[in-house]
Protein backbone atom coordinates (compact mmCIF):
# COMPACT_ATOMS: atom_id res chain seq x y z
CA UNK A 1 0.00 0.00 0.00
CA UNK A 2 2.82 2.41 0.89
CA UNK A 3 6.41 2.17 -0.31
CA UNK A 4 8.94 4.78 0.72
CA UNK A 5 12.38 4.75 -0.87
CA UNK A 6 15.28 7.05 -0.05
CA UNK A 7 13.14 9.95 1.09
CA UNK A 8 15.18 13.00 2.05
CA UNK A 9 13.87 16.43 2.96
CA UNK A 10 16.26 19.34 3.41
CA UNK A 11 15.53 22.77 4.83
CA UNK A 12 18.61 24.72 3.74
CA UNK A 13 21.58 22.81 5.12
CA UNK A 14 19.48 20.92 7.66
CA UNK A 15 18.37 17.39 6.79
CA UNK A 16 14.92 17.14 8.37
CA UNK A 17 14.53 13.63 6.90
CA UNK A 18 17.52 11.67 5.63
CA UNK A 19 17.27 8.71 3.28
CA UNK A 20 14.32 6.98 4.94
CA UNK A 21 13.07 3.65 3.55
CA UNK A 22 10.11 1.60 4.71
CA UNK A 23 6.97 -0.07 3.45
CA UNK A 24 3.50 -0.66 4.81
CA UNK A 25 1.22 -3.43 3.59
CA UNK A 26 -2.60 -3.40 3.55
CA UNK A 27 -4.08 -4.60 6.85
CA UNK A 28 -1.00 -3.48 8.80
CA UNK A 29 -0.41 -0.67 11.27
CA UNK A 30 2.90 1.18 11.40
CA UNK A 31 3.85 3.43 14.31
CA UNK A 32 6.37 6.15 13.55
CA UNK A 33 8.03 7.02 16.83
CA UNK A 34 10.70 9.43 17.92
CA UNK A 35 11.18 12.44 20.16
CA UNK A 36 9.86 15.87 19.27
CA UNK A 37 11.85 17.19 16.32
CA UNK A 38 12.76 13.70 15.07
CA UNK A 39 11.06 14.41 11.74
CA UNK A 40 7.77 12.52 12.15
CA UNK A 41 5.53 15.31 10.87
CA UNK A 42 7.95 16.22 8.07
CA UNK A 43 7.95 12.58 6.94
CA UNK A 44 4.14 12.59 6.90
CA UNK A 45 4.15 15.80 4.84
CA UNK A 46 6.43 14.04 2.35
CA UNK A 47 4.03 11.07 2.18
CA UNK A 48 1.18 13.48 1.37
CA UNK A 49 3.21 15.45 -1.18
CA UNK A 50 2.77 18.63 0.86
CA UNK A 51 6.49 19.39 0.69
CA UNK A 52 9.04 18.84 -2.05
CA UNK A 53 11.44 16.02 -1.29
CA UNK A 54 14.02 13.71 -2.84
CA UNK A 55 13.24 10.02 -3.13
CA UNK A 56 10.09 8.11 -4.00
CA UNK A 57 6.78 7.63 -2.23
CA UNK A 58 4.30 5.23 -3.82
CA UNK A 59 0.74 5.02 -2.50
CA UNK A 60 -0.99 2.01 -4.00
CA UNK A 61 1.47 2.30 -6.89
CA UNK A 62 0.85 6.03 -7.46
CA UNK A 63 3.91 8.28 -7.28
CA UNK A 64 3.17 11.08 -4.79
CA UNK A 65 5.87 13.32 -6.27
CA UNK A 66 4.34 13.17 -9.76
CA UNK A 67 0.66 12.61 -9.13
CA UNK A 68 0.07 13.91 -5.63
CA UNK A 69 -3.66 14.60 -5.89
CA UNK A 70 -4.39 11.08 -7.20
CA UNK A 71 -2.33 9.56 -4.40
CA UNK A 72 -4.09 11.72 -1.81
CA UNK A 73 -7.44 10.36 -3.02
CA UNK A 74 -6.31 7.11 -1.40
CA UNK A 75 -5.20 8.71 1.86
CA UNK A 76 -7.19 9.87 4.87
CA UNK A 77 -5.10 12.33 6.87
CA UNK A 78 -5.58 13.54 10.40
CA UNK A 79 -3.09 16.31 11.23
CA UNK A 80 -1.87 16.90 14.75
CA UNK A 81 -3.94 20.09 14.99
CA UNK A 82 -6.70 19.92 12.37
CA UNK A 83 -7.34 23.42 10.99
CA UNK A 84 -10.77 24.04 9.52
CA UNK A 85 -12.50 27.21 8.38
CA UNK A 86 -13.83 28.60 11.63
CA UNK A 87 -16.96 30.17 10.14
CA UNK A 88 -18.30 26.92 8.66
CA UNK A 89 -20.48 24.63 10.76
CA UNK A 90 -19.51 21.04 11.49
CA UNK A 91 -22.02 19.78 8.90
CA UNK A 92 -20.85 22.29 6.26
CA UNK A 93 -17.22 21.36 6.88
CA UNK A 94 -17.95 17.65 6.45
CA UNK A 95 -19.95 18.41 3.28
CA UNK A 96 -17.21 20.62 1.85
CA UNK A 97 -14.56 17.92 2.31
CA UNK A 98 -16.99 15.26 1.08
CA UNK A 99 -17.35 17.29 -2.15
CA UNK A 100 -13.56 17.54 -2.48
CA UNK A 101 -13.28 13.78 -2.04
CA UNK A 102 -16.27 13.10 -4.35
CA UNK A 103 -18.21 11.49 -1.52
CA UNK A 104 -21.99 11.74 -1.08
CA UNK A 105 -23.65 14.13 1.39
CA UNK A 106 -25.19 11.22 3.28
CA UNK A 107 -21.70 9.83 3.85
CA UNK A 108 -20.64 13.19 5.29
CA UNK A 109 -23.61 13.11 7.63
CA UNK A 110 -22.80 9.54 8.70
CA UNK A 111 -19.18 10.51 9.31
CA UNK A 112 -20.19 13.34 11.65
CA UNK A 113 -22.53 10.97 13.50
CA UNK A 114 -19.89 8.24 13.75
CA UNK A 115 -17.50 10.50 15.66
CA UNK A 116 -20.26 11.64 18.03
CA UNK A 117 -20.70 15.15 16.65
CA UNK A 118 -24.28 14.83 15.40
CA UNK A 119 -25.55 17.04 18.23
CA UNK A 120 -23.02 19.70 17.26
CA UNK A 121 -23.60 19.53 13.50
CA UNK A 122 -24.89 23.12 13.35
CA UNK A 123 -22.22 24.55 15.60
CA UNK A 124 -19.50 26.62 13.96
CA UNK A 125 -16.08 24.96 13.92
CA UNK A 126 -14.63 28.01 15.68
CA UNK A 127 -16.83 27.21 18.68
CA UNK A 128 -15.63 23.60 19.02
CA UNK A 129 -13.25 22.40 21.72
CA UNK A 130 -9.87 20.96 20.72
CA UNK A 131 -11.11 17.41 21.27
CA UNK A 132 -14.19 18.01 19.12
CA UNK A 133 -12.06 19.47 16.33
CA UNK A 134 -9.87 16.38 16.54
CA UNK A 135 -12.98 14.20 16.14
CA UNK A 136 -14.15 16.26 13.19
CA UNK A 137 -10.67 15.82 11.70
CA UNK A 138 -11.04 12.09 12.10
CA UNK A 139 -14.47 12.15 10.43
CA UNK A 140 -13.01 14.11 7.49
CA UNK A 141 -10.01 11.77 7.23
CA UNK A 142 -12.26 8.73 7.03
CA UNK A 143 -14.91 10.19 4.70
CA UNK A 144 -13.88 8.30 1.60
CA UNK A 145 -13.10 5.06 3.44
CA UNK A 146 -9.42 5.44 2.41
CA UNK A 147 -7.21 2.38 2.05
CA UNK A 148 -4.42 4.29 3.83
CA UNK A 149 -5.04 6.29 6.98
CA UNK A 150 -2.30 8.64 8.21
CA UNK A 151 -2.68 9.94 11.75
CA UNK A 152 -0.21 12.52 13.06
CA UNK A 153 0.03 12.33 16.84
CA UNK A 154 -3.63 11.28 17.15
CA UNK A 155 -3.41 10.67 20.91
CA UNK A 156 -2.29 14.21 21.72
CA UNK A 157 -4.81 15.92 23.96
CA UNK A 158 -7.02 12.86 24.26
CA UNK A 159 -8.10 11.47 27.62
CA UNK A 160 -7.73 7.78 28.40
CA UNK A 161 -11.20 6.77 27.14
CA UNK A 162 -10.60 8.63 23.86
CA UNK A 163 -7.23 6.92 23.51
CA UNK A 164 -8.91 3.54 23.99
CA UNK A 165 -11.47 4.55 21.37
CA UNK A 166 -8.60 5.41 19.04
CA UNK A 167 -7.07 1.99 19.58
CA UNK A 168 -10.44 0.42 18.68
CA UNK A 169 -10.68 2.51 15.53
CA UNK A 170 -7.19 1.55 14.40
CA UNK A 171 -7.97 -2.13 15.09
CA UNK A 172 -11.12 -1.81 12.95
CA UNK A 173 -9.09 -0.37 10.09
CA UNK A 174 -6.69 -3.27 10.31
CA UNK A 175 -9.61 -5.73 10.25
CA UNK A 176 -10.97 -3.97 7.14
CA UNK A 177 -7.60 -4.62 5.46
CA UNK A 178 -6.76 -0.91 5.49
CA UNK A 179 -3.26 0.31 6.23
CA UNK A 180 -2.66 2.78 9.05
CA UNK A 181 0.42 4.91 9.65
CA UNK A 182 0.43 6.85 12.89
CA UNK A 183 3.07 8.97 14.49
CA UNK A 184 3.32 9.15 18.23
CA UNK A 185 5.73 10.05 20.95
CA UNK A 186 3.62 8.10 23.47
CA UNK A 187 5.40 4.77 23.38
CA UNK A 188 3.00 2.96 25.68
CA UNK A 189 0.32 2.84 22.97
CA UNK A 190 2.60 1.23 20.40
CA UNK A 191 2.46 -2.46 21.43
CA UNK A 192 -1.34 -2.28 21.57
CA UNK A 193 -1.78 -0.55 18.24
CA UNK A 194 1.02 -1.26 15.78
CA UNK A 195 2.35 -4.26 13.88
CA UNK A 196 5.53 -2.48 12.84
CA UNK A 197 7.60 0.36 14.20
CA UNK A 198 9.71 2.99 12.45
CA UNK A 199 11.91 4.86 14.91
CA UNK A 200 13.27 8.23 13.81
CA UNK A 201 16.00 10.20 15.46
CA UNK A 202 17.05 13.58 14.07
CA UNK A 203 15.54 12.68 10.71
CA UNK A 204 17.27 9.32 10.39
CA UNK A 205 15.66 5.91 10.52
CA UNK A 206 17.21 4.14 13.51
CA UNK A 207 14.88 1.16 13.56
CA UNK A 208 12.30 -0.36 11.26
CA UNK A 209 10.77 -3.71 12.03
CA UNK A 210 8.11 -5.67 13.81
CA UNK A 211 6.75 -4.38 17.10
CA UNK A 212 7.56 -7.78 18.60
CA UNK A 213 11.24 -7.23 17.78
CA UNK A 214 11.24 -3.83 19.31
CA UNK A 215 10.10 -4.44 22.87
CA UNK A 216 13.03 -2.44 24.10
CA UNK A 217 11.91 0.48 22.01
CA UNK A 218 8.33 0.47 23.11
CA UNK A 219 8.70 -0.64 26.72
CA UNK A 220 9.40 2.84 27.91
CA UNK A 221 9.91 4.21 31.36
CA UNK A 222 7.06 5.63 33.38
CA UNK A 223 7.39 7.97 36.29
CA UNK A 224 5.31 6.68 39.20
CA UNK A 225 4.72 8.97 42.18
CA UNK A 226 3.52 7.19 45.34
CA UNK A 227 2.58 8.67 48.72
CA UNK A 228 2.18 6.18 51.53
CA UNK A 229 0.95 6.40 55.12
CA UNK A 230 3.83 6.19 57.58
CA UNK A 231 7.50 5.43 56.98
CA UNK A 232 8.75 5.37 53.39
CA UNK A 233 11.65 3.02 54.09
CA UNK A 234 9.70 -0.23 53.96
CA UNK A 235 7.84 0.85 50.82
CA UNK A 236 11.08 1.82 49.06
CA UNK A 237 12.66 -1.56 49.87
CA UNK A 238 9.62 -3.35 48.56
CA UNK A 239 9.56 -1.37 45.30
CA UNK A 240 13.26 -2.14 44.70
CA UNK A 241 12.54 -5.80 45.30
CA UNK A 242 9.52 -5.92 42.96
CA UNK A 243 11.13 -3.88 40.19
CA UNK A 244 14.88 -4.26 40.52
CA UNK A 245 15.58 -2.35 37.27
CA UNK A 246 13.71 0.70 38.46
CA UNK A 247 15.22 3.89 39.86
CA UNK A 248 13.69 4.90 43.19
CA UNK A 249 14.11 8.29 44.82
CA UNK A 250 12.38 9.95 47.75
CA UNK A 251 11.31 13.57 47.65
CA UNK A 252 9.47 14.76 50.75
CA UNK A 253 6.40 12.57 51.21
CA UNK A 254 6.67 11.17 47.72
CA UNK A 255 8.43 8.07 46.47
CA UNK A 256 9.34 8.54 42.83
CA UNK A 257 9.82 5.38 40.79
CA UNK A 258 11.18 5.35 37.24
CA UNK A 259 10.17 1.98 35.91
CA UNK A 260 8.93 0.17 32.85
CA UNK A 261 5.38 1.12 32.03
CA UNK A 262 4.30 -2.49 32.42
CA UNK A 263 5.59 -2.64 36.02
CA UNK A 264 3.45 0.15 37.47
CA UNK A 265 0.45 -2.01 38.37
CA UNK A 266 2.68 -4.74 39.83
CA UNK A 267 4.40 -2.26 42.16
CA UNK A 268 1.14 -0.85 43.49
CA UNK A 269 -0.31 -4.32 43.89
CA UNK A 270 2.65 -5.48 46.02
CA UNK A 271 2.42 -2.39 48.23
CA UNK A 272 -1.25 -3.09 48.89
CA UNK A 273 -0.62 -6.79 49.54
CA UNK A 274 2.12 -5.82 52.01
CA UNK A 275 -0.53 -3.79 53.90
CA UNK A 276 1.20 -0.49 53.12
CA UNK A 277 -1.50 2.13 52.98
CA UNK A 278 -1.20 3.99 49.66
CA UNK A 279 -2.57 7.53 50.06
CA UNK A 280 -2.00 8.86 46.55
CA UNK A 281 -0.63 7.79 43.18
CA UNK A 282 0.32 9.86 40.16
CA UNK A 283 1.70 8.63 36.87
CA UNK A 284 3.62 10.39 34.15
CA UNK A 285 3.89 8.32 31.03
CA UNK A 286 7.24 8.60 29.37
CA UNK A 287 7.43 9.99 25.91
CA UNK A 288 10.00 8.76 23.45
CA UNK A 289 12.16 11.81 24.03
CA UNK A 290 12.68 10.58 27.57
CA UNK A 291 12.94 6.89 26.77
CA UNK A 292 16.18 5.10 26.27
CA UNK A 293 16.31 3.32 22.96
CA UNK A 294 17.84 -0.11 23.17
CA UNK A 295 17.28 -1.31 19.69
CA UNK A 296 17.48 -4.95 18.72
CA UNK A 297 18.41 -4.12 15.13
CA UNK A 298 20.36 -1.00 14.41
CA UNK A 299 19.80 0.39 10.97
CA UNK A 300 23.09 1.14 9.28
CA UNK A 301 23.27 4.65 10.62
CA UNK A 302 21.66 6.32 7.62
Amino acid at each position, binding site marked *: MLTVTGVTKRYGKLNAIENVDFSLAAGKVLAVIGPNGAGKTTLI*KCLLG*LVRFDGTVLVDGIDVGRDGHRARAKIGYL*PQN*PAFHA*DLTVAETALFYADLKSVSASRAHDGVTAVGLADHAHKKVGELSGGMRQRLGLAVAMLADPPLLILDEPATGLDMSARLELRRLVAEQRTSNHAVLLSTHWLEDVPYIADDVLALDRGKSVFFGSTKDSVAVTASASQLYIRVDGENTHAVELVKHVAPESVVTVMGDWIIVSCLASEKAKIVEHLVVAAIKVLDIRVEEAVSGQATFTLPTQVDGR
Partner: protein
Amino acid sequence: MHPIMVIFRKEVRDAVRSRWMVVFALTFGIVALVLSLVQASSDNISVQGFNRTTAALTNLSLLLVPLLAFVIGAGAIAGERERGTWTMLLSQPITVRQLMIGKFAGLVVAIWATIALGFGGAGMVVALVSPITDVGHYVMFSALSAILAAATLSIGMLISVFSDGRLKALSQAMVVWFVLVVLYDLAAVGLALTFSASGRSLLIAVLANPVECVRIFFIMSLEPDVDVLGPLGSYVINEVGRGTAISLIAGVLVLWIVIPLTVAISVARNHDA
Protein backbone atom coordinates in the same frame (compact mmCIF):
# COMPACT_ATOMS: atom_id res chain seq x y z
CA MET B 1 -18.15 17.81 -8.49
CA HIS B 2 -14.86 19.11 -9.92
CA PRO B 3 -12.49 20.41 -7.20
CA ILE B 4 -12.33 23.87 -8.86
CA MET B 5 -16.12 24.10 -8.60
CA VAL B 6 -16.06 23.01 -4.94
CA ILE B 7 -13.57 25.77 -4.06
CA PHE B 8 -15.41 28.31 -6.26
CA ARG B 9 -18.71 27.64 -4.47
CA LYS B 10 -17.08 27.93 -1.06
CA GLU B 11 -15.44 31.27 -1.90
CA VAL B 12 -18.70 32.74 -3.20
CA ARG B 13 -20.62 31.49 -0.16
CA ASP B 14 -17.96 32.87 2.21
CA ALA B 15 -18.10 36.25 0.47
CA VAL B 16 -21.89 36.39 0.65
CA ARG B 17 -21.80 35.57 4.35
CA SER B 18 -18.97 37.89 5.30
CA ARG B 19 -19.42 41.60 5.74
CA TRP B 20 -16.83 42.85 3.26
CA MET B 21 -19.12 42.41 0.27
CA VAL B 22 -21.96 44.41 1.85
CA VAL B 23 -19.65 47.10 3.20
CA PHE B 24 -17.91 47.64 -0.14
CA ALA B 25 -21.19 47.50 -2.12
CA LEU B 26 -22.70 50.16 0.13
CA THR B 27 -19.54 52.30 -0.07
CA PHE B 28 -19.44 52.04 -3.87
CA GLY B 29 -23.14 52.78 -4.11
CA ILE B 30 -23.23 55.78 -1.78
CA VAL B 31 -20.09 57.45 -3.19
CA ALA B 32 -21.23 56.83 -6.77
CA LEU B 33 -24.68 58.19 -6.01
CA VAL B 34 -23.40 61.36 -4.38
CA LEU B 35 -20.96 61.93 -7.24
CA SER B 36 -23.61 61.31 -9.87
CA LEU B 37 -26.19 63.59 -8.27
CA VAL B 38 -23.65 66.41 -7.85
CA GLN B 39 -22.64 66.05 -11.51
CA ALA B 40 -26.26 65.88 -12.66
CA SER B 41 -27.28 69.04 -10.82
CA SER B 42 -24.25 71.01 -12.05
CA ASP B 43 -24.97 70.00 -15.68
CA ASN B 44 -28.70 70.56 -15.39
CA ILE B 45 -29.25 66.89 -16.20
CA SER B 46 -28.08 67.19 -19.77
CA VAL B 47 -27.10 64.42 -22.15
CA GLN B 48 -23.45 65.36 -21.68
CA GLY B 49 -24.11 65.26 -17.95
CA PHE B 50 -24.50 61.51 -17.93
CA ASN B 51 -21.35 61.21 -19.99
CA ARG B 52 -19.46 63.30 -17.47
CA THR B 53 -21.03 61.35 -14.63
CA THR B 54 -19.81 58.09 -16.15
CA ALA B 55 -16.35 59.58 -16.56
CA ALA B 56 -16.32 60.72 -12.94
CA LEU B 57 -17.51 57.28 -11.84
CA THR B 58 -14.66 55.74 -13.79
CA ASN B 59 -12.13 57.76 -11.82
CA LEU B 60 -13.87 56.58 -8.66
CA SER B 61 -13.81 52.99 -9.89
CA LEU B 62 -10.08 53.26 -10.71
CA LEU B 63 -9.51 54.13 -7.05
CA LEU B 64 -11.89 51.79 -5.24
CA VAL B 65 -12.02 48.62 -7.36
CA PRO B 66 -8.25 47.96 -7.21
CA LEU B 67 -8.33 48.70 -3.48
CA LEU B 68 -10.98 46.05 -2.91
CA ALA B 69 -9.39 43.48 -5.22
CA PHE B 70 -5.87 43.98 -3.81
CA VAL B 71 -7.13 43.57 -0.24
CA ILE B 72 -9.15 40.44 -1.04
CA GLY B 73 -6.41 38.91 -3.19
CA ALA B 74 -3.62 39.61 -0.70
CA GLY B 75 -5.54 37.89 2.08
CA ALA B 76 -6.55 34.91 -0.04
CA ILE B 77 -3.50 32.64 0.31
CA ALA B 78 -1.61 34.26 3.18
CA GLY B 79 -4.75 34.09 5.33
CA GLU B 80 -5.27 30.39 4.62
CA ARG B 81 -1.62 29.70 5.40
CA GLU B 82 -1.83 31.64 8.65
CA ARG B 83 -4.90 29.69 9.80
CA GLY B 84 -3.38 26.34 8.78
CA THR B 85 -6.27 25.62 6.40
CA TRP B 86 -3.97 25.81 3.35
CA THR B 87 -2.18 22.61 4.43
CA MET B 88 -5.49 20.97 5.29
CA LEU B 89 -6.87 21.80 1.82
CA LEU B 90 -3.76 20.60 0.02
CA SER B 91 -3.81 17.29 1.90
CA GLN B 92 -7.01 16.52 -0.03
CA PRO B 93 -7.27 15.20 -3.60
CA ILE B 94 -6.74 18.63 -5.18
CA THR B 95 -3.82 20.29 -6.94
CA VAL B 96 -2.42 23.74 -6.14
CA ARG B 97 -3.56 24.88 -9.59
CA GLN B 98 -7.14 23.73 -9.03
CA LEU B 99 -7.22 25.30 -5.58
CA MET B 100 -5.93 28.67 -6.78
CA ILE B 101 -8.11 28.82 -9.89
CA GLY B 102 -11.15 27.95 -7.78
CA LYS B 103 -10.27 30.67 -5.28
CA PHE B 104 -9.62 33.24 -8.01
CA ALA B 105 -12.87 32.47 -9.80
CA GLY B 106 -14.93 32.59 -6.60
CA LEU B 107 -13.36 35.83 -5.41
CA VAL B 108 -13.60 37.58 -8.77
CA VAL B 109 -17.29 36.71 -9.05
CA ALA B 110 -17.84 38.00 -5.51
CA ILE B 111 -16.07 41.27 -6.39
CA TRP B 112 -18.06 41.60 -9.61
CA ALA B 113 -21.26 41.12 -7.63
CA THR B 114 -20.12 43.83 -5.20
CA ILE B 115 -19.41 46.23 -8.07
CA ALA B 116 -22.74 45.39 -9.72
CA LEU B 117 -24.65 45.97 -6.50
CA GLY B 118 -22.84 49.21 -5.68
CA PHE B 119 -22.50 50.94 -9.05
CA GLY B 120 -25.55 49.20 -10.52
CA GLY B 121 -27.76 50.38 -7.65
CA ALA B 122 -26.38 53.91 -7.96
CA GLY B 123 -26.89 53.81 -11.74
CA MET B 124 -30.53 52.90 -11.32
CA VAL B 125 -31.13 55.79 -8.92
CA VAL B 126 -29.36 58.18 -11.30
CA ALA B 127 -31.53 56.89 -14.15
CA LEU B 128 -34.63 57.84 -12.17
CA VAL B 129 -33.36 61.42 -11.83
CA SER B 130 -31.79 61.83 -15.26
CA PRO B 131 -32.97 60.40 -18.59
CA ILE B 132 -30.47 57.77 -19.73
CA THR B 133 -29.13 58.60 -23.14
CA ASP B 134 -25.70 57.11 -22.61
CA VAL B 135 -26.27 53.51 -21.54
CA GLY B 136 -23.42 52.25 -23.73
CA HIS B 137 -20.78 54.17 -21.81
CA TYR B 138 -22.21 53.04 -18.50
CA VAL B 139 -22.09 49.40 -19.65
CA MET B 140 -18.53 49.94 -20.87
CA PHE B 141 -17.63 51.46 -17.51
CA SER B 142 -19.06 48.41 -15.70
CA ALA B 143 -17.24 45.94 -17.96
CA LEU B 144 -13.93 47.78 -17.55
CA SER B 145 -14.42 47.82 -13.78
CA ALA B 146 -14.91 44.04 -13.91
CA ILE B 147 -11.74 43.56 -15.97
CA LEU B 148 -9.80 45.84 -13.63
CA ALA B 149 -11.08 43.82 -10.66
CA ALA B 150 -9.86 40.58 -12.23
CA ALA B 151 -6.41 42.01 -13.06
CA THR B 152 -5.82 43.54 -9.65
CA LEU B 153 -7.16 40.44 -7.86
CA SER B 154 -4.66 38.41 -9.84
CA ILE B 155 -1.83 40.74 -8.72
CA GLY B 156 -3.16 40.60 -5.14
CA MET B 157 -2.97 36.80 -5.16
CA LEU B 158 0.59 36.98 -6.49
CA ILE B 159 1.50 39.24 -3.56
CA SER B 160 -0.26 36.78 -1.24
CA VAL B 161 1.79 33.72 -2.28
CA PHE B 162 5.02 35.59 -1.62
CA SER B 163 3.99 36.76 1.85
CA ASP B 164 4.41 34.76 5.02
CA GLY B 165 1.63 36.52 6.91
CA ARG B 166 -1.75 38.09 6.14
CA LEU B 167 -0.86 41.47 7.63
CA LYS B 168 2.38 41.61 5.66
CA ALA B 169 0.50 40.71 2.48
CA LEU B 170 -2.09 43.43 3.10
CA SER B 171 0.51 46.11 3.74
CA GLN B 172 2.43 45.12 0.60
CA ALA B 173 -0.82 45.24 -1.37
CA MET B 174 -1.50 48.75 -0.05
CA VAL B 175 1.90 49.92 -1.25
CA VAL B 176 1.31 48.42 -4.70
CA TRP B 177 -2.16 50.02 -4.82
CA PHE B 178 -0.71 53.44 -3.94
CA VAL B 179 2.01 53.14 -6.58
CA LEU B 180 -0.27 51.89 -9.39
CA VAL B 181 -3.32 54.03 -8.67
CA VAL B 182 -2.05 57.28 -7.18
CA LEU B 183 1.65 57.70 -7.87
CA TYR B 184 1.99 56.19 -11.33
CA ASP B 185 0.14 58.74 -13.42
CA LEU B 186 1.95 61.65 -11.77
CA ALA B 187 5.34 59.96 -11.99
CA ALA B 188 4.86 59.06 -15.66
CA VAL B 189 3.86 62.61 -16.56
CA GLY B 190 6.79 63.98 -14.61
CA LEU B 191 9.18 61.72 -16.48
CA ALA B 192 7.55 62.55 -19.80
CA LEU B 193 7.92 66.27 -19.20
CA THR B 194 11.49 65.88 -17.98
CA PHE B 195 12.78 63.60 -20.75
CA SER B 196 10.24 64.51 -23.49
CA ALA B 197 9.31 60.85 -23.85
CA SER B 198 8.15 59.39 -27.16
CA GLY B 199 4.66 58.05 -27.85
CA ARG B 200 6.11 54.56 -27.83
CA SER B 201 7.61 54.85 -24.34
CA LEU B 202 4.42 56.44 -23.04
CA LEU B 203 2.42 53.55 -24.45
CA ILE B 204 4.74 51.11 -22.68
CA ALA B 205 4.24 53.11 -19.49
CA VAL B 206 0.48 52.69 -19.91
CA LEU B 207 0.68 48.97 -20.64
CA ALA B 208 2.88 48.37 -17.59
CA ASN B 209 0.00 49.35 -15.31
CA PRO B 210 -3.45 47.71 -15.60
CA VAL B 211 -5.08 50.71 -13.93
CA GLU B 212 -3.67 53.01 -16.63
CA CYS B 213 -4.76 50.52 -19.31
CA VAL B 214 -8.35 50.73 -18.10
CA ARG B 215 -8.18 54.50 -17.78
CA ILE B 216 -6.93 54.96 -21.35
CA PHE B 217 -9.34 52.33 -22.69
CA PHE B 218 -12.20 54.30 -21.20
CA ILE B 219 -10.91 57.58 -22.59
CA MET B 220 -11.04 56.03 -26.01
CA SER B 221 -14.52 54.71 -25.46
CA LEU B 222 -15.69 58.20 -24.45
CA GLU B 223 -14.25 61.05 -26.44
CA PRO B 224 -10.55 61.66 -27.05
CA ASP B 225 -10.85 65.25 -25.91
CA VAL B 226 -12.30 64.47 -22.52
CA ASP B 227 -9.77 65.91 -20.14
CA VAL B 228 -11.00 64.57 -16.86
CA LEU B 229 -9.26 61.19 -17.02
CA GLY B 230 -5.66 62.19 -16.51
CA PRO B 231 -2.76 63.61 -18.50
CA LEU B 232 -1.06 60.33 -19.39
CA GLY B 233 -4.12 59.27 -21.37
CA SER B 234 -4.09 62.47 -23.39
CA TYR B 235 -0.41 61.92 -24.23
CA VAL B 236 -1.05 58.40 -25.51
CA ILE B 237 -4.08 59.40 -27.57
CA ASN B 238 -2.13 62.23 -29.19
CA GLU B 239 1.07 60.29 -29.76
CA VAL B 240 -0.08 56.81 -30.76
CA GLY B 241 -3.62 57.21 -31.94
CA ARG B 242 -6.82 55.47 -31.06
CA GLY B 243 -6.83 52.50 -33.44
CA THR B 244 -3.37 51.10 -32.63
CA ALA B 245 -3.73 51.49 -28.91
CA ILE B 246 -7.19 50.01 -28.41
CA SER B 247 -6.48 46.43 -29.51
CA LEU B 248 -3.08 46.41 -27.83
CA ILE B 249 -4.51 47.59 -24.50
CA ALA B 250 -7.34 45.04 -24.64
CA GLY B 251 -4.84 42.21 -25.18
CA VAL B 252 -2.51 43.47 -22.46
CA LEU B 253 -5.41 43.68 -19.98
CA VAL B 254 -6.09 39.98 -20.57
CA LEU B 255 -2.40 39.29 -19.93
CA TRP B 256 -2.62 41.29 -16.69
CA ILE B 257 -5.28 38.82 -15.53
CA VAL B 258 -3.54 35.65 -16.72
CA ILE B 259 0.17 36.25 -16.02
CA PRO B 260 0.15 37.19 -12.29
CA LEU B 261 -2.21 34.30 -11.54
CA THR B 262 -0.05 31.86 -13.52
CA VAL B 263 3.10 33.04 -11.74
CA ALA B 264 1.28 32.82 -8.37
CA ILE B 265 0.28 29.21 -9.10
CA SER B 266 3.83 28.35 -10.09
CA VAL B 267 5.26 29.94 -6.93
CA ALA B 268 2.68 28.22 -4.70
CA ARG B 269 3.45 24.86 -6.34
CA ASN B 270 7.11 25.18 -5.41
CA HIS B 271 6.33 26.42 -1.91
CA ASP B 272 6.16 23.80 0.88
CA ALA B 273 2.68 23.63 2.45
